[in-house]
Each structure stands twice: as structure tokens, then as C-alpha cells.
């Protein structure tokens, strides 16, 4: 293989590490119509349990098993999450914040995204808030 072929191949696949801190600026991008959306599974114990499984499989690798955050990846037990509406969290999960490290999760079914939000809510609220 010629030298220029090697160079071309390396340039195409060169894995460059780049990662930026999440700073909450995504909140400004959420359309008004999305902010007011309500979680259809809010406070339901089975949705929280399903959300916990989904979180463990899809989110914990970056945000930590207990949502405590990892390195520059933010904790999900925080005032920012507590103060965000369900609609804002749903918008973030669906659209991500890809230039700041958060992947787009639009390929995950909407019902599962709401279940994850129900679980994240349970981490940020008193346990008595859930209902069967």
C-alpha cells in the first residue's frame, strides 16, 4: 500500500478525543410548546422501575450508576434537573446536546424516554411522590 493511501485511511478514521462540559445552556433551546409537556408516567412505580432498568442500561455508563455524574458528565441529582420541567427533560433526551457530548436518543421509543424521566424525577424527589 502506498504512503498516501495510509495517510488517507488514517485521516478518515482518526479517533480524536473531544468532549465539552455540559453547562445547562440547552435549556434555552427548548421550544415553549415542549416545555409544558407532561410525563404520562409521572409518579407511577412501575414506570420508575422500568426507567431504572433503562437508565442502568443506557445512561449509567456516562452519568454513573446512581446518577452522581462522572468526570465532566453532569450528575442527574441536581437542582438543574429538579427545576427542569418534564417537557424540558424529554426534549433533551430526544434531541441530545451532541456538540457538548450528550447523544441524541431519538431512536429510543418515546414511552421509554418518559420512563427514564420518571426514574430521574424519583431520584430528585421524596420517595412518597410515587403512586401505584
Amino acid at each position, binding site marked *: 500500500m502506498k504512503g498516501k493511501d495510509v495517510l488517507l485511511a488514517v485521516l478518515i478514521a482518526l479517533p480524536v478525543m*473531544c468532549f465539552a462540559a455540559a453547562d445547562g445552556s440547552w435549556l434555552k433551546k427548548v421550544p415553549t410548546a415542549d416545555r409544558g409537556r407532561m410525563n404520562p408516567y409521572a409518579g407511577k412505580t412501575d414506570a420508575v422501575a422500568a426507567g431504572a*432498568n433503562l437508565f442502568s*442500561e*443506557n445512561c449509567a*455508563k456516562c452519568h454513573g450508576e446512581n446518577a452522581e455524574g462522572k468526570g465532566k458528565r453532569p450528575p442527574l441529582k441536581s437542582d438543574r434537573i429538579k427545576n427542569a420541567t418534564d417537557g424540558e427533560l424529554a426534549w433533551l433526551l*430526544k434531541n441530545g446536546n*451532541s456538540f457538548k457530548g450528550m447523544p*441524541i436518543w431519538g*431512536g429510543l421509543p418515546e414511552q*421509554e424516554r418518559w420512563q427514564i424521566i420518571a426514574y430521574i424525577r424519583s431520584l430528585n424527589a421524596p420517595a412518597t411522590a410515587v403512586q401505584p
Partner: protein
Amino acid sequence: MLHARLRIRFGDLLVPFLLAICLVPAWRAASAQQEPPYFVTYSSVLEEPGNLEIEDQNIVAAPRNANRFFAPTLELEYGVTAWWTAEAYLQGQATQHDSTVFTGFRFESRFRPLPREYWINPVVYVEYENVNGADKSFLEVTGNSTITTLQVSNAALRKELERSIEGKLILSSNVKGWNISENMIAEKAVNESEPWEFGYALAVARPLALKGQGRSCVFCRQNISAGAELFGGLGTRYSFGLKQTAQYAGPTVALNAPHGLTFKFSPEFGLNDNGAGVLWRFGVSYEIQQVRDWFRRSK
């Protein structure tokens, strides 16, 4: 002497595959990876940043008037950022009554230029490939490739080295749990004067259930995705169209087992006389999470 005494039977390969699936219940917890169960078609789903996916993708086929073959492809897929995934492929094949050969490698990158989820999501795909004529991986079909190339011996085919660049426009939509993806492919050899070749791939898939479950399970409906793929060549710059091209279609199914393990299976049927009959495809992939944390001091 290159004549290997290969006795490839589909059943021999299917048994270990099914055994591996049966061992899956040893794991607990649910899984909901969002990647659709496609072999050829790309969707807009990229690898999560920092994750490394290792996939063994295989084909078994018994083409008409040609020796049956087994063609494995090893894929290493890494999420560089949330909008950029890089991938490397190593390929080989074993042909009955012929030989086992390494057929080449590919490097590719996929970029998702738009920062949000839209009703249709574009992804730009760029690939460099260095493969010889014995390649039977069917990772895509372009140009006027027909079954006749499968009837030539590996010794002759491996002398034909092709270096090419390939671009794909990937369009993908997620609607009520369904994923619908379309790929337009253009390929150009850089080491010989061949015209641009074109191809396409279309696919649709959906998980069997859209809600997660509170209890831990492996064979839950939400862990299984099913769909269908259609792909084929579209000729060259000078002979654009379906004439003298190979076309394939078939159902596809995947089990997204817990902890990043995925099993995929698809029989793909040749739709015309240029196709290789049935391509039996199966793949196993494992996702290693946050590989880059291994190289960081503060985790």
C-alpha cells in the same frame, strides 16, 4: 496447496449461534439499545461517545453454479463524539473446495451534521476501502456486480486489488417506534479507471414493544426488534439503473441482550438471476462502555 477441504454446512454455524443465545439468560437487567437490526442499511444512530462496539458479522451462502462460502467481517466501531462515529473493518472468506483468504480492510466515518432530532435525519458517511476481488462480505452492493464473480477461484480473484472511496447519504426517521432508513451510495475506484458506481439500501424496523418493564428480563418484547431490508446496485455513471444489477431483500431480527450484547439474524433473498440465491447473515456484537475512561487519570 490451497485446496482446503472445507465442509461448510449452515447447521454447523447455526448451532453455536443458537447456543450463545440460550446462554444469554445468565445476565440480568433490561436492555433498550436504540440501534435497529440492520446488516447493510445504516440508520442515524451513532455509537455513544467513548463506547467501542466489536461485531462479528457473517454470511453463509450457496450460490447457484458456484461453491458455497462463509464470509466473516470483524467490525470495530468507536464513538468519537456524539456526532462522529469511526469504524474499521477486517474481512475474509472461506470457499468450499477452494481456499480461505483475507480479503481486505475498510475505514469509515459517519457524521451527523444537524444537532437535533428531525422528522428526517441526515448522516454523511465516508469510507476508504482496500479489498481484493475475493471479497464476499456484501456490506453493500454497488454497480453491476453479478453472480459471475462468485464463480471465479479465490486465487484469481485475490489478484484484483481495488482501492476505493465511498460516500453514502444516510437518511433516517423515527416515527412512533418505527425506524425508516434510506441510504444512497456512490463508490469510485482510485487505483484504476473505473466509473462511479451506485447503489442503495432501504430498511424499516420496530421493537416488538415500546415500553420498558420493571422486572429484569432478556427475551422481553422490547429487547427484540424486527424489520426488513432491501438493497442492491444501481449501475454505473454510464449505465445507471437496475439492468444487470444484483438486488436483495429479506426480513431481519435482533435481540438486544443486556450489557451491550446483541444478536442479529437475517436471510436475504436474491430478487433476480444476478443475486446469490439466499445470503444467510448472522452477527454478534458486544459494546464495551466508556473505553476512553481507561486512558483518563480522573474518572
